């Protein structure tokens, strides 16, 4: 215990004596949130639309008016011909075509159901998906307001474009991105700092010096990981504060629950850093291995591309990615207000991932080379 105490003191002294590191730790959350949440967004600001209204009815005109009134769609052409619309789409004059078939109003009035076709420029699949989701959302709302033909049939009408994004009612994409970016942030801080910190001691020769002392492997690892674990949680705290104050991202769930999950998740993140440090000899190597791992880790996490859009095998692989589960948990707790029971599965997975990764990493670390 005494050795652990003096080693912890050493680690904290060294960390806070490194002004570049301290600045980085406090600036990274701010910069990443500001830059990434604005840049790495699929939000569709003003999609130009071409309206092919083959129905020319009050209801069909309402559809194009509603879309335009949302401010997310700008009318950029209209005719009765789909072909003319497609040409505009191909020339990139518009991003989408809204085709309202003839008989649309009649269907709405008689059967309370009608279909609309959206033709999208899907070169950027994610953007197209978001565009479609916005249209669905707007049309669903419109449909609910349509009056029925008779007072005996007051069932709300449905326009056949189903909608998603219930939990982002403000349609602010940053609210969706920020929790994921916070996860990525603590991952980088935790993994990279751990690996670099230990490898730096390897390079300086001080690790050999420590390995010659009676300090046990467990004490050494605890003294290395505890300070970085604490710091990563502090960085998360800063990130959450910035997210709330600057972006107005809601915190509908419990803050202690977020930190509980982060604490568990960080065991895995730091464990990966520890493992990297034991298989590399220099800081460059550690950096390289780190980014190779993080890259895959990030891409398979659902931060930038939804996991549900991945092929079957990739979805199965992603199940083993603790980062994906932590991102899901963060979004659920922050945006939907999910409670302990709702995210119990993610918590269990995070705990298990931490236990497995740490065990592997500790076994990999030896005081004496084989």
């Amino acid at each position, binding site marked *: 215990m005494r050795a652990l105490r003096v080693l912890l003191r050493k680690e904290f002294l*060294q960390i806070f004596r490194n002004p570049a590191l301290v600045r980085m730790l406090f600036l990274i959350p701010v910069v990443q949130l500001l830059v990434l949440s604005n840049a790495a967004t699929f939000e569709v600001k003003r999609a130009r639309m071409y309206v092919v209204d083959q129905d020319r009815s009050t209801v069909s005109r309402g559809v194009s008016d509603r879309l335009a009134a949302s401010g997310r769609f700008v009318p950029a052409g209209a005719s009765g011909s789909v072909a003319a619309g497609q040409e505009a789409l191909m020339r990139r004059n518009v991003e989408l075509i809204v085709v309202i078939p003839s008989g649309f109003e009649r269907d709405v009035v008689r059967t309370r159901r009608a279909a609309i076709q959206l033709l999208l420029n899907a070169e950027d699949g994610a953007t197209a998906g978001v565009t479609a989701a916005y249209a669905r959302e707007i049309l669903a709302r419109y449909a609910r307001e349509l009056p029925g033909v008779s007072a005996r049939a007051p069932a709300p009408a449905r326009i056949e474009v189903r909608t998603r994004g219930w939990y982002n009612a403000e349609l602010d994409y940053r609210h969706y991105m920020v929790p994921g970016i916070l996860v990525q942030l603590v991952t980088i801080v935790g993994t990279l700092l751990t690996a670099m910190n230990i490898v730096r001691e390897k390079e*300086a*020769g001080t690790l050999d010096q420590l390995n*010659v002392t009676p300090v046990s492997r467990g004490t050494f690892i605890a003294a290395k990981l505890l300070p970085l674990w604490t710091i990563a949680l502090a960085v998360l705290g800063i990130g959450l504060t910035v997210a709330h104050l600057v972006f107005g991202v809601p915190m509908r769930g419990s803050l202690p629950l977020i930190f509980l999950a982060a604490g568990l998740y960080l065991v895995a993140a730091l464990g990966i850093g520890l493992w990297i440090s034991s298989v590399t000899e220099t800081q460059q190597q550690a950096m390289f291995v780190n980014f190779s791992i993080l890259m895959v880790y990030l891409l398979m996490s659902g931060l930038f591309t939804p996991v549900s859009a991945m092929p079957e095998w990739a979805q199965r692989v992603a199940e083993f990615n603790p980062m994906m589960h932590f991102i899901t948990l963060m979004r659920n707790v922050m945006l939907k207000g999910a409670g302990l029971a709702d995210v119990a599965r993610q918590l269990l997975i995070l705990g298990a991932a931490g236990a497995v990764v740490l065990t592997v990493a500790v076994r990999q670390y030896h005081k004496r*080379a084989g």
Partner: protein
Amino acid sequence: MNAIMVRELTRRFGRFTAVDAISVDVAAGEVFGFLGANGAGKTTAIKMLIGLLAPSSGSARVAGYDVLTQSDAVRRNIGYMSQRFSLYDDLSTRENISLYGGIYGLRDAEIRTRGDELLRHLGMEPIADALVGTLPLGWKQKLAFSVALLHRPAVVFLDEPTGGVDPVTRRQFWEMIYAAAARGTTVFVTTHYMDEAEYCDRLSIMVDGRIAAMGTPAALKAEFGVASIDEVFVRLARPATAAAGG
């Protein structure tokens, strides 16, 4: 009982044998010089003795404990100073002393008295709170040696402790080594300076992983019929260097 007993100690890396069945005995309180050209296997041998590297075969006891099976007991009873300066540059002198004192389980009061004594002895009291990284190399090395002795180990291993320091500081360093030996500490030291080799009670010269010669400086000079250890070294090391193509 001997402080260090090495029997047929061997370390292979793949097909290359870095240390080839060496056997050495060092008596308690002795200053033992462990010489050899670069790449002769000195550092590999030391790493096995201090528990940083597992031997391929053979055995070694240090301070009465088996390095393979009782490595923790060995670690409690040895001090080590590597050729790479091994204190923390971003901690002060006093913080380094407290760290290593605490690691070896010294009580706070002990750390304070031994630390004060060490600083007074080195004349470093006025700069005890300066970061070690700001000190001149000679001071750092004397400090590193003193810190390696802080827990009063039975055996201290010094791997090229005087590399890159001026002759005056080297002289002072050797006075510290003698003082430690006089207190009963066994000193196992490697060096490239042949004048330093003459200061040792006994020494061995490693060539290509084997111990090519061992004895007191006087005995070795007599055996080879030369006037200095430098000449002994060159006679032993040169055939190896020539064979290696350099």
